């Protein structure tokens, strides 16, 4: 990564442990502060595989961890988390294909709002 490139991170939570699972949730963290291509659909992709097709690179996926004895029936965080990245050249903001394509059947939504910690709501 050169000094004119910035990382964008896309997190997808899928219905199952494989990348072909349906997207249940997603988050987007933008090292370009909005100057790079932005997600325009909710969800931006229908599956994890669709994100690969769009050019995202898989960084990490959740390991399959056996349940803790005595807590086999607990639910907590979403289990099937996949983290993707792409690099954006600040001098050519469409270098990775411009604005994201809408996924099949997805509805248009506003891009993610900026995040800020404040008082519990």
């Amino acid at each position, binding site marked *: 990564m050169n000094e004119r490139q910035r990382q964008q991170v896309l997190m997808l939570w899928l*219905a199952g442990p494989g990348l072909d699972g349906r997207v*249940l*949730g997603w988050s987007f963290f933008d090292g370009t502060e909005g100057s790079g291509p932005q997600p325009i659909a909710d969800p931006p992709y229908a599956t994890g595989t669709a994100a690969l097709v769009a050019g995202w690179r898989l960084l990490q996926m959740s390991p399959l961890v056996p349940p803790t004895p005595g807590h086999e029936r607990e639910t907590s965080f*979403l*289990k099937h988390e996949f983290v993707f990245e792409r690099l954006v050249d600040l001098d050519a903001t469409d270098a990775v294909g411009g604005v994201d394509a809408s996924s099949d059947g997805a509805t248009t939504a506003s891009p993610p709002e*900026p995040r800020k910690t404040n008082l519990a*709501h």
Partner: protein
Amino acid sequence: MDSVPLLTTDQMASFVARGFLRFEAAIPDDINAQAMDELPRLFRSWLDEFRGVTRAAEGATISDDEAPLPRSGTALDDAYPVDSAFGRMVRVPMIAGAIASLVGPGPVIDHHFVHIKGAGDLNAQGLHCDAIIDDGIAFDIQLFWFPHDVAPREGGTRYVPGSHLRRVNMDDVARYQHLAGDQYHSGPAGTVVIFHHGLWHAGAPNHGTRNRVMGKLRLNPTVPQVRLWDTSDVDARNRADDHIWARTDPAQVASELRRSEDWYEPSAHRLETVKRAHLWRYLTGDPSFDVDWYLTRTERRTALAGAAARL
């Protein structure tokens, strides 16, 4: 409390499955108008205390119509003057009936707070549940009172149906910016949404031109939360043998308790069903209740293994 309308079995089952109940335009306009005057002042008084600013130092006095902040543990009936905004809100029959059905007679104040989301404040608060991981199956409720109309995208609280029984701590779920089926409150003035204490929620961006005001009140039960609603139909609807792969009856409570949410993993959905069955056992006092036989089959096998060990 005898004359207030209690919740129905369907409403209670929905609360157990989804973690909230919504009462649209439940509070009359005059109480909402009073709240729009009192609640922002309550917020400012809290800010003063939080910042260590004494009102006396500013030459101010507490007016007669301004309720002091109740201490935690104060009985709800004693916490607010009957003519104050909070005092009137909790005495609206529909709300009083919901409170009585969920936490019974004699609940106590945990705390209240006034949340103001300023016009044009586009910060999206991280998703969280309040307090910490709360052990046990008994639950608190939190009333979210919106005393003015809230249009879509004007700061209505975001919340995630069916998240209330997941074991997470505070804002450890802030990573989830978008979950399928999450909701952003919008609705007419006087709407109250009652949450199970574990429901994930967050302050949402306010794209509107006016401040969004919301009064939140957390209540603790002081009695076991067993059969507090209108239970006249529950015994006939409480079969343990209603099973999605055998015979189902849409009139049974189980039909609501097996509801899924769009953001659930299929495997987690079954575990959520089991957790709801446990909660329904607590609420009904029926230790044999089940949904889709998950508890019954394992409990029977465990009993067999125990019996074998004693041979």
